[in-house]
């Protein structure tokens, strides 16, 4: 079959957008990661691997490992909570479904900082939870300004992003697949494992990536809810750009994060034969 070699004109608009908004900035960051910094914080145009060497320092590696671990744990928590939610929303119909979807999306329409401060009001040492505990004569819970506060903030904030792709792929499933599996002798659990799960693999992966990657770069939540006691990759990177005036080092960290993203996407592509476009 002969394929047309030229692109339709609408594709050109998209291509221009893609190049200026994605490829160009990325190339700039990539390039900057190989430059050096002067004492005063401006950029020296000389090629150097110093930034990447610096990142191999155990301090930065420790931050990287910590951040990856945090993002991983938070993602798994999101999966544990979000998957049943997505499953329920896909199975239920009528008012409950509409209500459920609205509740899921309300956080999207609220300002992010407001939501975080909402958590502070809830879990702060004089917050609603502690006031309840005090009223019941129980000891205070200090969730905020600890790792747990950060976990909670991450899961709370990113949960809808995980639920939506999973819900979407569950919705697209032929409802008769489940019945067919039962009919042929599978128990509920076997049906779930052998029929449902393999067919929503893509949704699961997309949802996890949508959540894992941004979490790697998070710094507002660790600052506001974690008491800024621990620096994660996002914070270290932002500090390079704004406080410490070491743009090349910051770019190196940014490049590293981008490479992680590309690696995750490549993994996904290999794992599911149909690829990204099919899943969405």
């Amino acid at each position, binding site marked *: 079959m002969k394929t047309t070699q030229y692109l339709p004109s609408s594709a050109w608009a998209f291509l221009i957008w893609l190049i200026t908004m994605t490829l160009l900035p990325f190339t700039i960051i990539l390039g900057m990661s190989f430059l050096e910094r002067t004492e*005063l*914080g401006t950029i020296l145009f000389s090629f150097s691997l110093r930034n990447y060497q610096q990142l191999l320092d155990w*301090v930065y590696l420790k931050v990287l490992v910590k951040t990856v671990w945090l993002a991983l744990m938070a993602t798994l928590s999101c999966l544990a909570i979000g998957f049943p939610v997505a499953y329920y929303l896909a199975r239920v119909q009528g008012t409950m479904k509409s209500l459920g979807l609205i509740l899921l999306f309300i956080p999207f329409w609220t300002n992010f900082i407001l939501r975080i401060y909402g958590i502070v009001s809830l879990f702060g040492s*004089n917050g609603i939870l502690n006031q309840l505990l005090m009223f019941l004569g129980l000891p205070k819970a200090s969730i905020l300004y600890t790792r747990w506060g950060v976990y909670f903030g991450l899961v709370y904030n990113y949960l809808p992003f995980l639920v939506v792709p999973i819900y979407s792929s569950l919705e697209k499933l032929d409802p008769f697949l489940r019945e067919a599996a039962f009919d042929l002798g599978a128990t509920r659990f076997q049906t779930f494992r052998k029929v449902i799960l393999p067919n929503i693999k893509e949704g699961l992966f997309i949802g996890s990536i949508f959540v894992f990657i941004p979490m790697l770069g998070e710094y507002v939540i660790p600052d506001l809810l*974690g008491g800024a006691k*621990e620096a994660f990759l996002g914070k270290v990177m932002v500090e390079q750009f*704004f406080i*410490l005036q070491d743009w090349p080092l910051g770019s190196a960290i940014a490049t590293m994060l981008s490479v992680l993203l590309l690696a995750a996407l490549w993994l996904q592509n290999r794992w599911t034969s149909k690829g990204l476009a099919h899943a969405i």
Partner: protein
Amino acid sequence: MGTQRIAILFLGLALVIGGILFLRGKVAHTNTLRICTWSNYFPEESLRDFTDKTGIRVELTYISSNEELFAKLKAGATGFDIIQPSDYISSRLIALSMLAPIDPRLLPNLHHLDPYYFSLPYDPGLKYTVPFTFGTTGIAVNTSKVSVPEGQLSWSFLLDSPDAGHTSLLDDMREVFSAVLFFKGLSPNSRDLASLQNVKSDISKVRDRVLMFTSEPKPLLLKQELTVAHIFSVDAIQAHRENPDIKFFIPKEGGIIWTDNFAIPSTSTRIEQAHQFINFFLEPQNNLTVVEANLLATPNKSTRQLLPEALQKDPSMYPSQETLAKLKFLEDLGDALPRLSRMWTELKS
């Protein structure tokens, strides 16, 4: 077909609008000053007064941090005539020759400034900057929750707080290191790696005890989540206004003093008008309007005399001469900075 054309039209429009906005940055009316300022800093009436008096219009652009300002200038923004950098940014800008020199002949009101400000380490003789406010870093204590000992407070009150579970440190590398350096009787601008390592280990012990790091402790102090906070004087004073139990202390070992200044970028084309602006706000009456609106401490001695007695004598706003002598400006650390920042990252991991 239809959507295709709309898409291209839209893109074209976006580019055109972008171009117009960009050019506006280059071309401007001759009698307009472009000022990069903090939000709500200048009261409307003062700016109108200025325009009435001099015929020069004023256009404001807002930023929220020094780093943002520096990033903008470094990225090549050339449309500003007046900027308001803090002291440490000013010293960087001076070193990079990004500031136009100040001509004292165009500032007849300069003499209103307190003599202290003519020998600042980052700009001796005020060749490039003119301070419009100053402040200090110290400790805020909610005295109704935590009792303060007699006599002058020491930095140990923060570092070894009686209520560590409700204590915070500033999320600022230089400030936190300075607190310990002061405590040890050392200079906050020390580059000695050995001392810095010691300080680092001290901080790591403190870090485990305190509740959090934050550069904005005011709301939490008011909510009583914090009772002892490492804080900038400006925030402490505002908190005190709302809750008189919250008091501000400058420890006896000394602390950091900082200024916010007027400066003229070297790329400005309206240097004379910029000087007129600075001169206008050096006028005690005009300075007073701004100071009253923002509850800031002023380096202008004439303005100070116009303030109510209580305010003039308030040590949290206007430290005594004795205290002033112990206060230090933060200076650039040069090649020690990367090593310090690595220590800071280590502390936070």
